[in-house]
């Protein structure tokens, strides 16, 4: 038989106004590319700046708004033969920003999806475009207080719904611009 001890929970309401940020970096772009295409001899940058017609086509195919002006993508080559595409994308949820990579076969099948880094926030920072800048183009400066000590968290899980939506958009990008 277990007996129980009880105490008052910390008052968390104050904390939630400017909550701590949990941030994790898993892989750099280079590491994620190499893991996705271990046989690739080189990666050729093929970044796309969207034309208005392309934005419309992606939005129609994915059934969602396109916010980015372009897409970071590399062609993976093994002895000059195309073995796949490596697309870097990010999604912004209510409480988090996620950089992730989608590796595609030449025919557009998903080879793997890997999270490169994410940051979560419960404050108002996400509304600020200046705050977002640090996630775009990997010029991350730690202007926010990041608790690097928090490595593992249990409870109140983050949904991966935004990444699922993002992957749909990446596939629509493939259909529109790479196929």
């Amino acid at each position, binding site marked *: 038989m277990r*007996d129980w001890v009880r105490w008052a929970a910390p008052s968390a309401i104050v904390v939630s106004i400017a909550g701590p940020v949990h941030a994790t970096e898993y892989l750099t772009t280079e590491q994620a590319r190499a893991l996705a295409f271990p046989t690739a001899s080189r990666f050729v940058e093929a970044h796309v700046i969207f034309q208005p017609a392309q934005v419309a086509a992606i939005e129609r195919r994915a059934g969602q708004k396109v916010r980015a002006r372009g897409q970071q993508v590399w062609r993976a080559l093994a002895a000059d033969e195309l073995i796949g595409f490596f697309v870097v994308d990010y999604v912004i949820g209510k409480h988090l920003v996620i950089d992730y990579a989608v590796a595609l076969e030449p025919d557009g099948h998903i080879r793997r999806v890997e999270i490169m880094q994410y940051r979560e926030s419960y404050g108002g920072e996400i509304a600020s475009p200046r705050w977002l800048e640090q996630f775009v183009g990997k010029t991350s400066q730690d202007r926010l207080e990041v608790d690097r000590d928090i490595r593992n968290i249990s409870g109140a899980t983050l949904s991966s719904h935004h990444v699922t939506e993002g*992957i749909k958009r990446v596939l629509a990008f493939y259909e529109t611009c790479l196929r």
Partner: protein
Amino acid sequence: MKPACAEARRARPLLGTFVEIAAAGEVRGAVDAAIDAAFAVIARVHVLMSAHDPSSDVGRLNRHAGGRAVTVHPWTEVVLRTALELHRASNGIFDVAVTPVRRRGGEAFELVSPCRARVRRPDARIDLGGIAKGFAVDRALDVLGRHGMTRALVNAGGDLAVFGPDPEHVEIRHPCHPPATLCRVAVRNEALASSGGGDAVIVDPRRAAAAAIRGATVRAPSCVLADALTKIVMVAGEEAGPMLSRHGASALFLSSRGRIHATRDWSAGLRRAT
């Protein structure tokens, strides 16, 4: 044992959440291969036990509800058997039947022979969501061990398990105020799972009423047990004590009155948030 000199931490979207795997081994290539294999095992569990995919084991069981028995993967059988045992031991609190059928009581499914199961009533449906995530974490950790990792952690959206010589420190989120944490616990060669908070609503299947407990965390020898026991603690609160004892588990929960209740054996190791 040779010292570990390579470690990696990676994450993928799986099981409807973010699955994070950290491992340490002798060389980076072996660590990456082990993590890839562990992710593959989790994806396999997802494919077998997704309630949304009509071709999964669970999808086929639901499709043939009230009809013939369906052949399932040995892993699905293990999860079904565990669910059945916990359903009986908890007097029906743990239930994989989907509401509102679960209100009628009894077991929603039966195992008719090894790897063959059927959902009893034509209007019944099952969802292994409350237990399959923990099972997937256990399988992934097992793969990491068999790949020779010296320590490893698998965290599927808060359901986690670890092995290795040193304890891992885990922050337990406040279920109502996710940026805040309730406390920090050290886990070593065991599992931890949390329920509650966010949009999650745990319903007491016997009363069909939402649980009064806001969030519960259980540590147990395996993640499948920790995962399932959190659902029981969410409904039964302190009355779950004997079940926790029987499974070598301990728990803490946050009551609707804002008090933390923790089993005495665990409270000593907690570092409370202030």
